[in-house]
């Protein structure tokens, strides 16, 4: 009833995106407009209740694009894969050069290269081979996914070897499979969770002492009943051609400040996403269950309009995810070069970006990290890190969300009002004001804001209180009206009965008149 997606809509959205791309190519021609590139129509958007694309002012603007030259590297970066932010240090896995760069952030200035890590001490081989991810535990120990050497290394802060994690000792695994860890995260107890190429049973979990302790968080296996029947009739060769019903592998993981693992995958089917049969992002708890809140009107899978436009088709391919301290998480779409931000309830906060060669555009973004609310996006083809900082609008939105979380509902509402002044099509702002009014117990006003943006849950909360207040303040009138409704008909009935009794009472019937009437008949 509520969710409605017509072809017309998709066409409109596709036309819009197409127009945006055309405008982009026009602007690209002139050098002086290149800087203003990100402010063009359609770079940032959001979805409204109906799933219509609503253009939005930018929430982020590229502050700088860090190339090898900007960083002053003698050897240029080559196919970098991983990005890890620890404190104000940004670690870049320069996979093609078998090294890891340790960058120290300098506010909005260009980061300085602190160290270039080429290898570790105390183990053979001491050098890396295609390192793809990097992690540091709370104790300062360092973990490196050394993909080419089929191991995960654990070292002390000075890169002295402590232990290594090998291929999971699981009977079900193909013995010929070479262990190729791609992404790792480490929890507070130094347990390691890793994604390895070719292992689709979920995340490999290792205890702190290096023993493998099982797989967690495998994606649900879904299959079509029709497909299942087809398979029954298919020959061996045909069956091999068909897709097998196996869980999809994750593409990347991130551990948030509470220790939950956000895992994303790009290997998802358009129809399965739309029917909630597949997830592009999951929030995995210790039990391996998905606890991501999906209260938004639309699914958490990036673009919901997947028309073929500008040479791109299919759903968004989430190659990485990062989570702010306010539980907003940002997913990176490798397909169309976009960043999608969602809040803790699963509502889309922003969507921006595109593929291209200008600042703020990508060719093949693979990793994303954040520092406070700044975003760092690593592009593996450009070998560059794009740094995005929030604009005034973005900062206002974050302030509103943070103030609300801190319990300052009045200031939160004011910030949301500022956001509306900058973008009247921003649904979250209306609902935000409504929630702030709800907390201030101004129910009637809150209801109006919720109704404008069709937030039925919050509207009901406000309405319930409003109704309660109304009944309490008008209880006298209500009782009088109810009593009147009962007593008046009762009284009328009684009155009629008495009148009827009087009219038909024997003593009033006079002999003569009775005789008269009988004569007339």
């Amino acid at each position, binding site marked *: 009833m509520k969710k409605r997606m017509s072809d*017309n809509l998709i066409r409109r959205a596709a036309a819009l995106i197409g127009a945006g791309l055309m405008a982009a190519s026009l602007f690209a021609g002139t050098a002086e407009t290149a800087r203003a590139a990100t402010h063009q129509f359609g770079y940032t958007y959001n979805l409204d209740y109906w799933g219509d694309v609503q253009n939005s002012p930018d929430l982020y603007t590229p502050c700088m694009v860090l190339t090898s030259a900007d960083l002053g590297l003698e050897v240029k970066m080559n196919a970098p894969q991983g990005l890890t932010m620890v404190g104000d240090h940004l670690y870049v896995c320069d996979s093609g050069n078998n090294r890891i760069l340790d960058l120290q952030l300098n506010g909005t200035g260009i980061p300085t290269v602190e160290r270039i890590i080429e290898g570790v001490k105390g183990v053979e081989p001491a050098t890396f081979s295609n390192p793809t991810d990097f992690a540091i535990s709370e104790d300062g120990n360092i973990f490196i996914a050394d993909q080419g050497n089929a191991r995960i290394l654990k070292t002390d802060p000075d890169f002295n070897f402590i232990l290594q994690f090998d291929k999971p000792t699981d009977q079900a695994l193909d013995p010929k499979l070479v262990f190729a860890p791609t992404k790792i995260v480490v929890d507070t107890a130094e347990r390691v969770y890793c994604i390895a190429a070719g292992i689709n049973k979920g995340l490999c979990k290792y205890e702190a002492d290096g023993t493998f302790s099982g797989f967690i968080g495998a994606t649900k296996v879904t299959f079509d009943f029709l497909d299942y029947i087809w398979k029954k009739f298919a020959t061996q060769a045909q069956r091999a051609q068909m897709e097998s019903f196996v869980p999809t592998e994750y593409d990347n993981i991130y551990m948030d400040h509470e220790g939950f693992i956000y895992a994303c995958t790009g290997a998802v089917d358009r129809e399965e996403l739309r029917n909630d049969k597949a997830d592009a992002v999951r929030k995995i708890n210790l039990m391996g269950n998905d606890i991501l809140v999906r209260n938004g009107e639309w699914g958490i899978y990036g673009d919901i309009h997947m028309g073929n436009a500008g040479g791109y088709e299919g759903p968004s391919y989430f190659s990485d995810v990062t989570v702010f301290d306010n539980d907003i998480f940002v997913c990176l779409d490798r397909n169309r070069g976009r960043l999608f931000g969602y809040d803790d309830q699963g509502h889309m906060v922003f969507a921006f970006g595109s593929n291209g060669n200008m600042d703020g555009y990508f060719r093949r973004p693979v990793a994303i990290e954040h520092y406070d609310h700044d975003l760092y996006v690593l592009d593996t083809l450009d070998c560059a890190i794009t740094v995005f900082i929030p604009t005034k609008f973005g900062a206002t939105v974050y302030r509103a969300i943070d103030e609300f979380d801190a319990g300052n509902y009045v200031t939160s509402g004011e910030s949301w009002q500022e956001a509306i002044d900058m973008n009247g099509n921003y649904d979250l702002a209306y609902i935000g004001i409504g929630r702030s009014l709800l907390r201030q117990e101004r129910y009637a006003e809150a209801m109006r804001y919720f109704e404008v943006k069709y937030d039925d849950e919050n509207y009901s909360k406000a309405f319930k209180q409003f109704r309660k207040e109304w009944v309490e303040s008008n209880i006298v009138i209500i009782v009088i009206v109810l009593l009147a409704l009962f007593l008046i008909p009762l009284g009328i009935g009684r009155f009629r009965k008495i009148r009827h009794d009087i009219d038909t009472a024997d003593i009033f019937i006079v002999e003569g008149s009775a005789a008269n009437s009988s004569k007339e008949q």
Partner: protein
Amino acid sequence: MADTLSVKLFNKQAWGKYGDSLKFAFYCMTHPLDGFWDLTHEKRGTIAAANTILIATIFMRLMKLRYTSFIFLTVYWEELNIFLYIASILFPLALWVLGNWGLTTLFDGKGKLSQIYMATCYGMLPYPVIQLPLTVFSNFVTVEEGQFYSVLSVISLIYCGLLIIAAMGQIHEYGAGKNLLFTVASLFAMLVIIFILMIFFSMISQGVMYFISLVREFLFRL
């Protein structure tokens, strides 16, 4: 002319008959078997009352869009076509009446086309009667209490359906089994009519296109 119109308008007897037949619709609603029998056999129903109920139903359906709380019904006004929306009642109704009449005349149905129309419209009465208070009610409930709304809303439709089925049985003088059989058959007849209509329209458009291209070709060669 004006004279006859005013006579018609102020004909107390006609209005009285109309009022009675409209009131009788409520009797049919609560006593379907008895009511629908008398509807045709005792001539208690009028086409005027049937039209009124139909208009009330359409009007209620339109009002529902606007006045139901957004909790239960959100309307994408940009794409709403009011005429298509009205047709979404009238078209199936016409198909049903035609399909039912077409079949039942062949199988001893006693109802005339006008009677089938009248009885079907009388059967739609629960929709406006239940939906009107329900629409008002929807504005006084929260999501958690929404079950009442959904259930009552569904009941109004099922009630209509049952009434229409009962009505058909009575006006055609069918037994229960035969009535159900012809209800299903009428639904198939509706599908057949749609199919024929589609063929008809595509044939017509092809035919028209043929002559258009013929003229184009002709003009091109001139």
